């Protein structure tokens, strides 16, 4: 089976064997009766064991759809998702039952992702109950352990309801729920976007700690590049359903090759009043509609160095010497 993976292994890498391979994933949604929108079109990526892959992009670029497809909340239109050697679309229900607990996810709106009518402790131990993995005492003991690990006091918090919790505490609880099954892959879909800076820092540190403690592999989705850089080993940048650049996080931030990555980096407001850099280059800050993506390179409507070729031919994701991959005819 590894032969078909050859393409991915060819990229110069120091990374280990991939735990997850997404190849040519496309997801279409119907809008209205006849129109279709391709939220994700031809995304390929892989995550090595123990690696954190960051996925960044503006809202509506399809990053959450990629995440939802991986955990099975969204059926891909075409493409393969291979988790530790098994193609998820070919798996029987029995096999899926074994794979599902290994892939867990936490969501952006942690308050909404917890059942408001159920005690936090019960919510945390629910995955065990669903899978029938432990008896009542065992579940409660594990939930207590897990709550302690994520920094919630089980004595006080176990029988409370989500409305009594702050946003940061809710995110801790949903992390506990995700980790109680001892997953191998954790998908974090904008886990800190709705939190304040000080709480955000706590959750990011907690994620790093949990990653070490539970030997996790992570896919970390965010629109905030600074956050992604701080947590990821490699970063993939998405634009309108396509990946335009994948590179090691330090490299991407020092020398972005795709103009879109460069634009994103230049837009970040850095807390340093000395460097007041008005964003230059792009006249048009508007994202084109994914229902009607521009021909050729999808970024050409906003790109500062568009040429004729960009409008006609869509660039492919290609390896760059000494660096990751970039989908651009004229990389920086």
């Amino acid at each position, binding site marked *: 089976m590894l032969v078909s993976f050859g393409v991915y292994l060819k990229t110069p890498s120091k990374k280990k064997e991939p735990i997850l391979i997404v190849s040519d994933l496309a997801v279409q949604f119907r809008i209205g009766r006849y129109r279709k929108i391709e939220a994700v079109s031809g995304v390929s990526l892989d995550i090595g064991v123990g690696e954190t892959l960051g996925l960044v992009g503006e809202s509506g670029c399809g990053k959450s759809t990629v995440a939802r497809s991986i955990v099975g909340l969204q059926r891909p239109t075409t493409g393969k998702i291979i988790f530790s050697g098994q193609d998820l679309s070919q798996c029987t229900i029995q096999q899926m039952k074994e794979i599902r607990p290994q892939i867990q996810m936490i969501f952006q709106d942690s308050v909404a992702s917890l059942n408001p009518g159920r005690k936090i402790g019960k919510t945390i131990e629910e995955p065990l109950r669903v899978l029938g993995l432990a008896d009542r005492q065992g579940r409660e003991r594990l939930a207590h352990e897990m709550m302690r690990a994520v920094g919630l006091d089980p004595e006080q918090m176990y029988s409370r309801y989500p409305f009594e919790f702050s946003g940061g505490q809710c995110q801790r609880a949903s992390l506990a729920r995700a980790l109680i099954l001892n997953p191998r892959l954790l998908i974090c879909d904008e886990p800190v976007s709705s939190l304040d800076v000080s709480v955000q820092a706590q959750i990011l540190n907690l994620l790093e700690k949990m990653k070490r403690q539970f030997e996790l592999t992570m896919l970390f989705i965010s629109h905030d590049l600074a956050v992604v850089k701080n947590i990821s080993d490699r970063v993939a940048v998405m634009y309108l359903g396509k990946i335009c650049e994948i590179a090691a996080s330090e490299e991407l931030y020092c020398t972005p090759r795709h103009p879109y990555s460069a634009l994103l980096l230049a837009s970040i*407001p850095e807390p340093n009043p000395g460097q007041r850099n008005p964003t230059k280059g792009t006249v048009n800050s508007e994202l084109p509609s994914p229902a009607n993506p521009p021909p050729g390179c999808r970024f050409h409507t906003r790109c500062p160095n568009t040429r004729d070729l960009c409008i006609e031919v869509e660039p492919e994701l290609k390896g760059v010497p000494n660096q990751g991959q970039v989908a651009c005819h004229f990389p920086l």
Partner: protein
Amino acid sequence: MMICSDTQPILEVNDLRALLPTRRGMVNAVDNISLRLHPGRTLGIVGESGCGKSMLARAIMGLLPARSIVPSESIVNFKGHSLISMKKARLRKIIGREIAMIFQDPMTSLNPVMKVGQQIAEVICFHLKVSRKNAHKRAVELLDLVGIPMAEQRANQYPHQLSGGLRQRVAIAIALACEPKLLIADEPTTALDVTVQAAILDLLAALQEEKQMAMILITHDLGVVAGRTDETAVMYAGKIVEQADTKELFHQMRMPYTHALMMAIPRLANRPHTKLQTINGQPPDMVDLPPGCRFASRCWKAQPLCIENEPSLKRINGQGHKIACWYPLESI
């Protein structure tokens, strides 16, 4: 953009307090706040959610929730007139014309069943007493001014047909319709993507320079204030805890809270997997405030004095750097 300090401030706020009714009693959401703002200057107000920054803006505008109390000692003077004691009818003539506000979520601040051009024209008709036709013409000009392409067609669209960035531009066009002297922007870019955020902030800065407006920019993002404001005030639990010229503030943060907030931000310059500094604990319960410094329970420099006595906002140097702290950090 230096304006000498002997010109009259356009806005003068003295000892402003606002008590909001909650189920558990009155909350002192804005506590003894004093500010001065000169024409053409920008004041940034930073703080985490729940620190009272939006309520401060609303208290200035007189837009507090029903049954809130603003004690009579509070002074809000706009061009020498007190806004607090002003009759409703007169206030209506000032708000929208001389003082305008932009809100965080443009979807909820715009009327969903009214064409955007009409929404702008409405303001112009009301305040400037011009004919509908002229008002519409002016509305199209304004849409063009805020950088909306094809302004003529866009004016005939409804908010749901526009993207988030365009909607916020419409909200800015409404705010600028009567060329206000003071613009209060309450988290104008929080709901937007970074690239759009940069474009909107650039637009606000350009318009401000052109029209010599004074602006209050409220945000939770220290990065946003760093590049765009002349002066910055940091709020914590309803009070201003540090206020200084923006460059001075970022050069030396003297109040431990400001410093901690800054250190919690994930920076682009950090190496991947850098541990972020966090602030322990939670902000105090606003219904039941501690007697001393409100940050004392989370502060690493807290002494018995901090827990017993509340520090007042005091000037610490000739540059107008003010802090409310008993044991400030060393100056650099």
